[in-house]
Structure formats: C-alpha cells, structure tokens
C-alpha cells in the first residue's frame, strides 16, 4: 500500500492509503471527538461530530473524518470556528434527546453547547447505532435493529432473537453512550418475558 502525505492541523503526516482522516489524526495524536465510532465496527458516519475541514484538489469542504479517506496533499483542520459551530449545533440537537448522557455533557462543556437551545424531547437514544452495528457486525445476531425512518427512527430489540441471544451476551451495553439501551432491553424483556434457561 502506498503512503499518503497530508497535513493535519499544520502537522506533516504520513498515512497509509485507505486510512480515514480520523485514523490518520489518531496515529499522530491529534484528537477528534466521536460518538458513533468504534474501532471494531465499520465506519458509519452518522453523528457527524467528527466533522473536519479538508482542502484537497483546490476544494475546501466539511467531511466526516471517520469515513473520509486520506487524500494526497490534503490539508485538514480539526478545529476552527466553522467546525466548532457544527459540533456545537450537533450537540445541542442531541442534548434535546439525552440531556444527561455523560459523553454529551463533556463535549457540551468543551464546545459551549447550550443544553436548553431546543425543547426537550427525551428519547434518551442518540441513534448512534453502536448496539445495532455491534450485534450485526461482531455478533452477527441482529437482535437489535433500527425501525422506521427520519425523526421516527428508533432502536428496537427483536423479541424473537433477543430472547434467545441477549441473556448471555449484553456486550452492547457498555457501548451505549446514554443509558437508553438497557432500558430498551428491560422493556422488551418485560413485554415478552425472556426465558432464562
């Protein structure tokens, strides 16, 4: 694999072809916040908190660093007024759903996000999909899935699968950035009465 030279925050970086900007930044010790990213899973690009500015081939654009591959001679900026505005807004949008999530609270402090900007609609889930993707990609069970679309999207345990698979696993629990996953699980459990044997 060929090497790719690029600049992140003024630092010369040599990355491998096919690496994402996030991976390249990490390798150089440059932090970029993430919410839906997890090394064991395919990059997803849903929360967009890892948005950075990239200038390549004469074009400047905002890209999600977790999914965007490194490009030769790209100039990447990981903090700027524009980027911070985007991250702040994303946090404010998510805080309406999960105001007490520690991961959001920490980032909110850093980016000066106003928790009360939008009316609270506590769903407690930020739809990062870590549980759904972990179950599908690592465990290959699909016991928890997304249902519906747009603002109606939510996660849901599939009772028939969950009742067989989840009892001894629960590996997705610690991945959840809010506490919603456990609640959804307990709800499903209560509704369908999982077998414990």
């Amino acid at each position, binding site marked *: 694999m060929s090497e790719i030279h690029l600049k992140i925050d003024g630092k010369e970086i040599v990355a491998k072809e096919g690496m994402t900007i996030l991976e390249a930044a990490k390798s150089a010790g440059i932090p970029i916040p993430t919410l839906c990213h997890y090394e064991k899973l395919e990059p997803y690009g849903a929360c*967009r908190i890892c948005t950075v500015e990239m200038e390549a081939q004469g074009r400047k654009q905002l890209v999600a660093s977790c999914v965007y591959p490194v490009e030769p001679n790209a100039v990447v900026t990981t903090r700027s007024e524009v980027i911070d*505005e985007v991250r702040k807004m994303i946090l404010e949008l*998510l805080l309406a759903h999960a105001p007490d999530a520690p991961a959001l609270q920490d980032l909110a402090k850093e980016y000066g996000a106003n928790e009360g*900007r939008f009316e609270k609609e506590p769903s407690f889930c930020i739809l990062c999909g870590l549980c759904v993707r972990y179950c599908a990609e690592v465990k290959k069970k699909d016991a928890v899935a997304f249902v519906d*679309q*747009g603002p109606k*999207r939510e996660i849901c345990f599939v009772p028939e699968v969950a009742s067989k698979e989840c009892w001894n696993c629960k590996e997705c629990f610690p991945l959840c950035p809010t506490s919603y996953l456990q609640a959804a699980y307990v709800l499903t459990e209560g509704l369908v009465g999982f077998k414990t044997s």
Partner: protein
Amino acid sequence: MTKINSPAELEEYRKILKSKIDPNRRWISLCSGSACNAARSAEVAAAIETELEKEGLSGLVDFKRTGCHGFCEKGPIVDIHPEKICYLNVAASDVSEIISETVKENRIIDRLLYTDPSTGEKIAHEDDIPFYKYQGRIIFSSNSKVDPKYIDDYIAVDGYSALAKALFEMNPDQVVDTVKEAGLRGRGGAGFPTGKKWEIARANPGDTKYVIVNADEGDPGAYMDRSVLEGNPHAVLEGLVIGAYAIGAHQGYIYVRQEYPLAVENVNIAIKQAEEAGFLGKNILGSGFDFTVEVAQGAGAFVCGEETALLRSLEGKPGEPKARPPFPAQSGLWGKPTNINNVETWANIPMIINNGASFFNSIGTKGSAGTKIFSLVGKVNNTGLVEVPMGITLRDIIFKVGGGIPNGKKFKAVQTGGPSGGCIPSEHLDRGVDFDELAKVGAIMGSGGMIVMDEDTCMVDMAKYFLVFLSEESCGKCVPCREGIRQMLNILTNITKGNGKESDIEVLEKLCKTTGSASLCALGKTAPSPVLSTLRYFRDEYEAHIRDKRCPAYSCKSLISYYIDPEKCQACMTCGKKCPAEAIVGGKNQIHVIDQEKCTKCGTCFEVCPSRFRAVKKISGEPVPTPIPVEARKIVREGKQK
C-alpha cells in the same frame, strides 16, 4: 418478431415498416399516460375501437394508445392525424361524433378544441396551441407518435439506429467523447456532465461494471421521468445500451418505483421485445457486444433517488446513503464500478449519437446544452409536462407555455428543483432557465419540478410543507439531517401557528448551516434550501408572522379570522346554510355574524358570499371587530316595509 442480426437487416426492416406508412393516412393518437388514464382515457380508447368497428373503419384508420402528450390539465387528449387536430378533455361520449364528423367527414368539432382564455378563439391544430407552440420538444416529441407497447412504432421513428451507429461506426471512446462534446448534463438533479461521468466509469478498472437507470423520481408534483418511461421506454433502453457499450458494462438495471405500475409494465414489455429483436442480449445486432437489463422495483422512498441509497436498495439492504468516496463509479453495485443516470438523461443519448454533438449543443445555453422537461404544476393555467430549450425564461414557461396564473391572481414565486430547490420571486422571472442561472438565484434545476405559486401562498407555510416532506423522507441515519430537519420543522410550525419568537430566524439560519454543511448525503445537504430561499426573498413574511402574528397571504389558519362586514351583509343566508361548523349567527333580514369560537376557518363563507356583496373578509394580524349589537342587525329593505 424475428431477430435482427445486423445494421443492414435493421435498415431493411425499417424500410418495410416505413413503406407501410402513408404520411397522409388518417390515424388517431390517444394519450394513455397515467394522468390521462386517471381521466378515463381507457374508456375513450374502448369507445374509439367500438366506433371504428361500427363505422367499418377498422384497419383503415390506425388507432394508437400512446404515452403522455403533456397537456395533462386538458386530458384525455385525442389527436387526429395527419392534420394534428387536437381534441381536449375528451370523454367516451364524445367519441362517436369524433369518428363520424372528423375522422369520416373532416369536420372539426368546435367544443372539443382549445379555447384561448384571453381571446376566446378556438384553436384546432396542436402546433398552434400556445402550450405546444412555445415548447421545443426533441425527446418528448415521439411520445404522441408511438405506442410504447409496440417496438415497431419506435423502429419506424428511427429507433435503434443510434445503437447500430454506436456499435458499428464508433468505438467506446468516441461514444464517450461525443456525449462529452454534446455537453449533456445529468437531468436527475445535480447536473454533473454525463460524458465526464461515463469517462470516469469507463476508466475504472474491472471486468464487471454496471449501468443503471435511476427512475426513482420522487419530487412532489414531478412526473416527467414517469412519462418518458411510460411513453417511450425504448428510447431509454437504447440510451442505456449505448452507455453500457461506452463504459464496458454488460448488465444494467432499471430502478423504478413500484408506484409507477404503467412504467414498470411498459418497460418490461419493451425489454422483452428488444431482446427478441436482438437489441438486448447476446451479440447485439451481430456486433459481439452483450448486454442484459433487469427491472428492479423500489418501494418509493425519496432518499433512494440518491445514488448510494439506490445502490444499497438494489443490493437488498435498507435504502440508506453511504459516505462518498468511494463514488459509485469506483465502487458501486456489489463493489463494482457503476454508472447511474436518470431516465431523461438516458433518453437524450440516442438523439445525440444520431445527430451529433454539435446538433445537441446548438440547443440551449453555453453551460447547459439541450432541452429540459419540466413538470409545470401549481397555480398555473396549463399544468402538464413541458419540454423547453435551456435558456428560455421563467416568464415564457409560466406565461406563454403555462398560460399564466388562474383566476386573475398575481404570480408570487415558482419553486424549482423540488424540496431540494428554491423559490424564485417575480423579480427574476426574466432569467434564463439553466443549471447555472438557477443556482445564482438560490434555486436549482433539480430533476425538473416547477411549482407555481400565486399571491395566496404563504411562503413560510410553503417552506414548512417541504420540510414535512423531507422529515418524512429522511432516512434518519445522520444527526444534522434527522435532527436538523426536525428542529427546523418545529420552528416553522410554531411560526405558522403564531408562536414564533424573535430569535427563530437566527436559529433557523444556524440550523440551515449545520444541516447543509455536515449532512451525509444530498437529501440533508439540500434540505435547508426551502427555508433559505424563502428567507432570502420573503423574510418580511417570516417577520410578519413572528412580530405581528400576521400571515400576509391570509393562509395560515391560526393567524387569520373571517369576519362579516355588517355594512355589506345583505342577510342572504347563503353562508349560514353552507357553514359546516354552524358558526354563523343570523337569519332572514338579520345581518350575519361569525361566532369566532365555533369557526373552524375553513373559508366556506368567504367562497360562497355572492360576489355582488363580498361581505366576508379575511383578516390577519388585527383583532376581529366587535359584532354590532343584536338590535342593530335587522335589515329593513326598501319597498318591503309594511
């Protein structure tokens, strides 16, 4: 039909078909597209067949059920050839007269003709009707000539000659170069140069490549791709095979929404007939080139018109967009290089190959060659599908082709490009319509939706309408789109209900910025457009809603009231009888008063109040005047005093 094995055989076959056609023969063309079908075109068709038989004309007078003629406002449409006498709004009960009078006796039936609304003049010939006269139809022109279910009709209008030319007289690079030189840009929305797209897909290495027809048309009110696919499926197929040859693909898919049953039916018939004729399958026309195509039906999600979501849907996965790069041209369907073009783009190809790049780029403007089919709908007299050369002004489309605004109302704005597009106010009506000009005024060409709005349209409400659509159609994967649209919609809803806050506009603009710049796919990236463009041109309407709780278009129910002017009310009781909420107090000789508590603001009283009185008023942003006392409500009519 028997298989055609070479270009020479094709030309021979065409010669035979053409020799059977006398240009002066009498034949009837009936629009049988979806819009006319909804207006009972099938009944008209049955009546025509019965009448021809009855009059002993079967076999003497040809009758074709064709695709959409475009003038959907006036369907079903019957054209009588060779004169091209055009009858509009034809019902089955009109048919016997059409056959006996016009077909047999050459007499024109006045009442079925187009009437010019301004002069009252009757127009008999299709080409003289302003709706058609000011268009420039080069793709759509075949629609009224061919029966989409018969490949012979298409071959007779020089169909598949471009395919023969490409396969035998050009190499793939020459095909790509011709399309590049023609300057064709994608008709699906973004306007990316088609030749460039093909070149990239061709250059990407790989033995297996795919070409796809994107027929997932989803903009509200837009149906041009549907009509092309229904009415002239072979043109799309021919373009597709030529593209496949240029790119090096041997398999293609037509991704069409299942709500388009007639398009699905006609394109499937077309594929079968093209296979039998040797235009699809192995060794096409004896060239050694193989290509097969399948129809894939989508479930109708708007986001599946986005290329990466379309590909995932084709693969049997949820229709959610994926990050680009890699682009479909690099890694598309099942990881193979894939080229996706929209229906209208493919339909342009045969004409470009046949007539050459310079023919095509002589039409239109410098940056936007050719024509564009628009779906002209909304508050305009002649709704329908119009094909015009790029560069024509909005004014010509709306007022010359479209016949202006109904009921003497004033034009307010036109929304181009669907939910991703923007509104354009009257000050820009004289702009030429092409990809770049529309972008300059904050709108887009999009796939060709054109919704005309009159003075009664509230622009905040209009933006809200598109945001409702987008919120339902967002896949919900990424935060800026899912949550940004949700919050924008919340704010717009509050504003239209009179609950807007002074800070709302600023928050809206911030949301627009984040959603527009950080969303994953084009649906989210363009979702702020309806808000941004209405803010750009109609900011005062937002401010009126927020500050004065007034809807300047008298459209937002929460902000308007109906009021009966006691000076004008003649106590005729018309409104009282029609009010569905029984909110009108008053009887004979008693001036009517609206009980504001009961009123549901349906507007019935406003509509039914006789125009000689015009006593019912709409008010907004001001308190409803206190009703006059009961004792003052009695009307004493002159001459009726006892």
